[in-house]
C-alpha cells in the first residue's frame, strides 16, 4: 500500500473512532423500560431483606470495571437520601450464571426495582444522578 493511501486510511479510521467514541458516550447511562420481571434477593445471592421497601437499585459490577466505584458511590448516596430505597451491588466477576441470567453485557448495569422486587428499568453504563432519581420517581420510590 502506498504511504498516502495508508495515511488517508488512518485518517478515516481516526475519524470513525472519534465518531464511535461520541456515540458510545451518548449511549451510556440511559435508562430503558424493560419487561417487568420479579427478582428476589436470593436470585442475586444476597440476603432476604436486602431490598428496599420502596425501591432497590441493583448494580452489577466486575473487578475490571473502571466506572463501577463511582456508580457505587452515587447509588449508595441516592439510597441514603431516599428513605425506603436500598442499593445492592452484585459482583459478576466469577458469576457467569448471574451474568447470563440477567443478560448483563456491560458494567455497571443497574436494575431499578420497585418495592415488590419487580424490575422496571435498566441502565447500561454509569448513570447520572438525575437519571436514577427520575427512575425512582417513576416507580414512586422517591418521595420522602
Amino acid at each position, binding site marked *: 500500500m502506498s504511504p498516502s493511501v495508508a495515511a488517508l486510511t*488512518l485518517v478515516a479510521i481516526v475519524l470513525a473512532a*472519534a465518531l464511535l467514541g461520541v456515540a458510545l458516550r451518548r449511549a451510556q447511562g440511559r435508562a430503558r423500560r424493560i419487561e417487568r420481571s420479579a427478582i428476589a434477593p436470593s436470585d442475586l445471592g444476597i440476603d432476604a431483606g436486602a431490598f428496599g421497601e420502596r425501591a432497590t437499585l441493583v448494580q452489577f459490577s466486575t473487578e*475490571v470495571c*473502571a466506572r463501577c466505584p463511582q456508580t457505587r458511590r452515587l447509588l449508595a448516596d441516592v439510597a441514603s437520601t431516599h428513605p425506603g430505597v436500598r442499593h445492592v451491588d452484585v459482583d459478576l466477576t466469577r*458469576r457467569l450464571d448471574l451474568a*447470563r441470567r440477567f443478560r448483563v*453485557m456491560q458494567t455497571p448495569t443497574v436494575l431499578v426495582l420497585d418495592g415488590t422486587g419487580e424490575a422496571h428499568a435498566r441502565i447500561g453504563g454509569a448513570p447520572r444522578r438525575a437519571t436514577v432519581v427520575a427512575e425512582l420517581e417513576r416507580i414512586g420510590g422517591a418521595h420522602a
Partner: protein
Amino acid sequence: MPEQGIDPRGPRFAAGITSVLLLIAAFFAFIGNATARAALTFGWTADQPASGDGLGPSDWWLPRATVAERAADTGFVLVAVAAALFLWGVASPRTAPWGVVFRRFVRPRLSPPAELEDPRPPRFAQGVGLFVTAIGLALHLLGVPLALPIAATAAFVAAFLNAAFGFCLGCQIYLGLQRLGLVGRTA
C-alpha cells in the same frame, strides 16, 4: 476493592502515548510487507484479468516469504514494541514506562487527583492490548496478509477511545469474554 489506588489520569496518559505509538505502527504495518503484493514485488507485468483485481492467495507477497523476511518489517517491529509494552503493563504495572513518566514528570505539575482508582481495570485493558497485538504478530509471522495492520488498528482504536473518551474496555468486553469462557472461572 482496595482503598488505595492509582491516579486515574496515569492510565489515560499511558493510553494517549500508546495510541500515538500504535497509530504510527499501524501506518508502517499498512505500507509494509503485510499488504505487499507478489506481482509488484517480483516484477510481473502480466495483464490483469478484465474482471479486475482478484485478491486470491497467489497475489500476496507475505505467504511466500520466509519467517525472517516477514519479521523484517518496520510495522512488525513497532507492533512488537507495543506488545512488549503491553506485556510490561500487565506483568508489572508499577514499573511500566508511561506510568513512571506520568508519576515523575506529569503528575507533579497537576493538582492532586479528585479520587484514586482501582488498578485492575487498566491492567485488564493492557492485557487486551497484549492479546490483540500478539495475535497480529503471530498471524503475520505465519504469513497471513493484513493481520498486522488490522491488529494494530484495533489496538489503536481501543487505546484511542480510552485516552480521548475515558472509555472503559473492561466494562464492555469482560462479560462477553466471560461468556466465551476466556475469563471468570469460578475459583
